[in-house]
């Protein structure tokens, strides 16, 4: 990675780290993981299932909120506050700025996920007293959650490159919700006929397939994850995020910074 991208990424990371709102969200997520212990204690024999379910859902949900919350302002805030003027008047290409921002936000989310994961494993250890082999699949579920973050980051950046923070938040969150139910959308498309079928199929393929990236429930039931799924999901998430980033770069390359 070139020095300018690294520089922009580390500054984006530093901005997120110094934002107090981020700490509130992380504290809230850790609190939710802690609450999983309490809920687990009143759930006879299914403590682990409840802890994993609640803990990973908290990591995923709060990570997405942080991704959207920070991602929507990454470009628009820089334009609005005119901080971009002193960056782009240097030997920085516009695509380098977008990629740098993406890596900065993705890095922030990976670090957040790491700390929140420590909370989940801590809760797991508290209720089960020791780790067992199937607990390793929790790491795969966390990896898939990070892949979700990459997609959300790239989408937030895409929307941020042409619209206001509020609209970007609405777009990104809508896509997250629709993407979470993309499997249902595909099932609906399979049952529908005519125009509705075409439309539902098109939407199901355009929106990110977060259903495939959500294996929290099966991991909570100690079911193994097929290695093929890991490879497919990795390729899918990287391609999807890559395409969204290309879109963001294409829009931003032509944008007049009035």
């Amino acid at each position: 990675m070139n020095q300018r991208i690294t520089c922009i990424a580390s500054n984006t990371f530093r901005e997120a780290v110094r934002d107090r709102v981020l700490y509130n969200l992380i504290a809230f997520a850790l609190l939710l993981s802690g609450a999983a212990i309490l809920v687990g204690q009143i759930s006879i024999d299914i403590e682990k299932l409840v802890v994993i379910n609640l803990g990973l859902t908290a990591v995923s949900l709060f990570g997405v909120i942080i991704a959207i919350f920070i991602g929507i302002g990454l470009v628009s805030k820089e334009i609005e506050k005119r901080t971009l003027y002193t960056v782009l008047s240097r030997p920085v290409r516009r695509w380098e700025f977008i990629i740098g921002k993406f890596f900065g936000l993705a890095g922030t989310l990976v670090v957040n996920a790491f700390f929140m994961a420590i909370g989940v494993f801590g809760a797991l250890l508290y209720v089960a007293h020791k780790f067992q082999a199937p607990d390793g699949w929790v790491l795969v579920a966390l990896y898939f959650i990070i892949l979700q973050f990459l997609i959300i980051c790239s989408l937030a950046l895409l929307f941020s490159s042409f619209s206001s923070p509020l609209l970007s938040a609405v777009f990104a969150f809508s896509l997250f919700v629709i993407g979470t139910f993309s499997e249902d959308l595909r099932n609906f498309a399979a049952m529908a006929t005519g125009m509705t079928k075409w439309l539902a199929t098109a939407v199901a393929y355009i929106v990110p397939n977060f259903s495939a990236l959500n294996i929290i429930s099966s991991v909570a039931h100690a079911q193994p994850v097929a290695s093929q799924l890991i490879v497919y999901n990795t390729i899918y998430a990287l391609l999807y995020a890559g395409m969204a980033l290309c879109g963001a770069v294409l829009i931003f390359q032509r944008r007049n910074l009035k």
Partner: protein
Amino acid sequence: MSAIEINGLEKTYSVGFWRKRPKCALKPLHLSVEEGEIFGFLGPNGAGKTTTLKMLMGLVFPTGGSARILGMDINDPQMKAQIGFLPEQPYFYDYLTAHELLDYYGRLSGVPGKELPPRIVKVLERVGLKDIRGVQLRKFSKGMLQRVGIAQAILHEPKIVFFDEPMSGLDPMGRREVRDLMEQLKHEGKTVFFSTHILSDAEALCDRVAVIHQGELRAVGAVAELTSGVQGKIEVVWQGTTVPASIKALGAECHVTGDTVRAVLSEESQDLALDALRRERLHMISLVPVRTTLEQYFVEKLKRSEKTAGSLA
């Protein structure tokens, strides 16, 4: 080779939500700035100064024409490594300290990491901010931010520095310091291109100025050339608080300030006025022809261009 070569650069925006209509922000601009000069880009608010600067910086894309800086295209990253830019009313990442901000900009400009710390210390000292270590920019006053802005523009030792309204937000002392800094930059062989509507700054600093109004270039030249028009009047200043009746009779405009009197009268009355001062035994301090100031020239130019625009409409 010119430092900046602008050939017919123009910008038209589309305005309106439903029915887009064109709005011309800058009519084709032809301008050339030589290496090592301080060039003032003058015009009232909304004249097109910032639009021009933004196009030169690659922030806004021109709808026509082209420009070259140091012989290179305005989007060439190699060229951008050799220029510095201070935007109007700059705002920086307020969660950073001045040192962190300059470190960030230095790295983006390609300054080697080892060279950065001493350069940052030197440049902060140069803009009068040496004792601000550890203070986040959110705690800075407007004037201090302007100084940080100037620091980031000159940190990487660019060949050309572009300043958009560099004096805004500064107190008289700060303005003086910035003027001195711009003169130092010129002595170091750098080219300074700055936009302003504070004409006294331009008059004191610039080798040449361009006047722009309603997106159109109205005049270019050395300040002395533009203001060379002698008005056919003289200004006599003498010590005292009284104005002899014979000088009043010459139709002089007199102003008493403290213990000096300043009288402006026609050139033909010069000898009669001097005779009157001798007769009254008043001590003359100075006698100079009244020349057009840059401000008078500027106001006259704008009035004329507004009249032309009005008659065309």
